[in-house]
């Protein structure tokens, strides 16, 4: 295996931070680990297998997944949620194989916000947030006032209280996205998986959503994994990063060791200018 160099992070040598040559200690799953993958290769039909992933998500961590379009970010997120079968490798949720956990149990531990939302039949905003309680209710149960209170609290956090009775199909793209996040807040899982949660949000709501995620992760036994396209937001809010390269290579580690301009340039196939604002690195595309 070629040693890692600034322009080519070593594939399948994930814990080697790109460009620094320094090895961060490979994290072993501990008793508190929320999610751990072993030699995980995601299944993208018609594509050669990518580098096996050895990720460990511990409580208190906020992971960012960065990569160009089609690198498999969403597929990875859905695989981590147990919605897709992996091509190889295993996923463990708190030490138990994900394939052996009952669906409802899994939905109480892992919540996923999708990139796109399908609303088959007309429904109100409140009804949509309320389906987050589904994993907690038995077949004959009817939502209690507590379930409603949780849904309303989540809507309030996403600035949607006034829209409670609106039909979902009348919402704007950003409002629909905040509603999806409110639904997962109602679901209240230990591990939040968010697929481009801020892609349609205005600046204020981008920051509000990510602050909320940060607040949740600060609670006991919580963690989050976010797919993001904004490197600067990732630099600010994520403590760990996973870079998925278009050729199937991958590398991951603490954010500080991953934000190497040459690696990011290779990641996006785009020259970047680097600056510093408020002590944080800022990356902007360079046009030439």
């Amino acid at each position: 295996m070629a040693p890692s160099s600034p322009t080519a992070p070593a594939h399948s040598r994930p814990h080697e931070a790109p460009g620094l040559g320094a090895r961060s200690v490979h994290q072993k799953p501990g008793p508190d680990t929320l999610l751990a993958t072993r030699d995980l290769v995601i299944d993208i039909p018609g594509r050669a297998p990518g580098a096996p992933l050895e990720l460990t998500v511990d409580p208190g961590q906020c992971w960012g997944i960065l990569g160009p379009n089609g690198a498999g970010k969403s597929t990875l997120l859905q695989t981590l949620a147990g919605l897709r079968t992996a091509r190889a490798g295993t996923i463990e949720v708190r030490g138990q194989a994900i394939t052996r956990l009952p669906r409802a149990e899994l939905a109480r531990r892992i919540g996923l916000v999708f990139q796109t939302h399908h609303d088959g039949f007309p429904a109100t905003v409140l009804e949509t947030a309320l389906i987050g309680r589904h994993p907690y209710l038995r077949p004959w149960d009817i939502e209690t006032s507590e379930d409603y209170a949780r849904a309303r609290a989540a809507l309030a956090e996403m600035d949607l209280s006034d829209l409670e009775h609106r039909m979902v199909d009348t919402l704007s793209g950003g409002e629909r996205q905040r509603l999806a996040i409110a639904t997962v807040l109602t679901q209240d899982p230990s591990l939040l998986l968010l697929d481009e949660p801020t892609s349609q949000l205005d600046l204020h709501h981008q920051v509000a959503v990510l602050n909320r995620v940060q607040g949740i992760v600060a609670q006991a036994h919580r963690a989050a994994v976010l797919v993001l396209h904004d490197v600067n937001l990732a630099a600010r809010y994520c403590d760990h990063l996973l870079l998925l390269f278009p050729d199937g290579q991958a590398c991951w580690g603490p954010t500080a060791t991953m934000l190497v301009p040459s690696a990011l340039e290779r990641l996006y196939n785009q020259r970047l200018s680097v600056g510093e604002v408020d002590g944080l690195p800022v990356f902007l595309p360079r046009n030439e």
Partner: protein
Amino acid sequence: MTRAFLLAAAVLLPASLLAVLIALAFGSVAIAPGDLLAVMLGEGSRLHDTLVLELRLPRALAAFAAGGLLGLAGALMQVLLRNPLADPYVLGLSGGASVGALLAMLAGLSMFSVSLAAFAGALLSTVIVFGLAHGTGSWTPTRLLLTGVVVAAGWGAMISFLLAVSPTAELPGMLYWLMGDVSHARNPYPAWILLVLVVFLALPLGRTLNVLARGPMQAAALGVAVRPVEWSIYVAAALITATAVMQVGAVGFVGLIVPHMLRLVFGNDQRVILPASALGGGILLTLADTLARTMIAPEQLPVGVITAMLGVPVFLFLLYRSR
């Protein structure tokens, strides 16, 4: 949800009773409310007793059960396909039943065998349509609707062929069957048992179906075992459609109009819509059959003509409004 459920029950249960009473009172001879009450209390005249208890009551109950099954089948298929246009008739299931029934008639079999052949035809058609449209992943609504429409066209061609080669004497009976006809439905009880059974099995599944309506991936992320649930709905919908068609022939559009109307009034909670569709379908077919018996009395119209007259405009309106 509780409020909508109670409201639906408060409106639809009395309406069901009223529909059956109307079916008992009207026909080639109208029976006054006082006389009807007398029959109920066992003090009616001989003529009224025969008319109400032996002729009209079994027919009204058969129409109600078949309508209930068709309404429920429509509501279930609409959740399965996440599309308000799904309906046993539109998806070609009734066409398969018709071909089965016509073949049995052509072979000169008994009315009972004709019903069984219709049941088999409906099941076969369900297997073809849903099997072909399933492909590798989940059912995609567009593919399923297209498959259903094409299969229905195929059945239509076979029906025309069978009518063309049938002896003239058989034609009136065949045409009546094709347009939907309650007059030969005599034993409504198996259909009733199935109706009650499926409603009670569907009720605890209602919230799961609400989540499933948001798409299979979202449902799985919220803890729904998508595959088993989808297959259960599929099997239940096929079974109840076949049973209904066996009773009343190719009656169309009940499964389309009823859930749609009820959604406009009671919202989209499947825990309300499924039982309400059963009652609403029953009410609609009972009233439609009463109309069919009385409009040109003493002659009878096929009940399918009446439901189609209501159903076609509603379907076109829905199609026009859907984006």
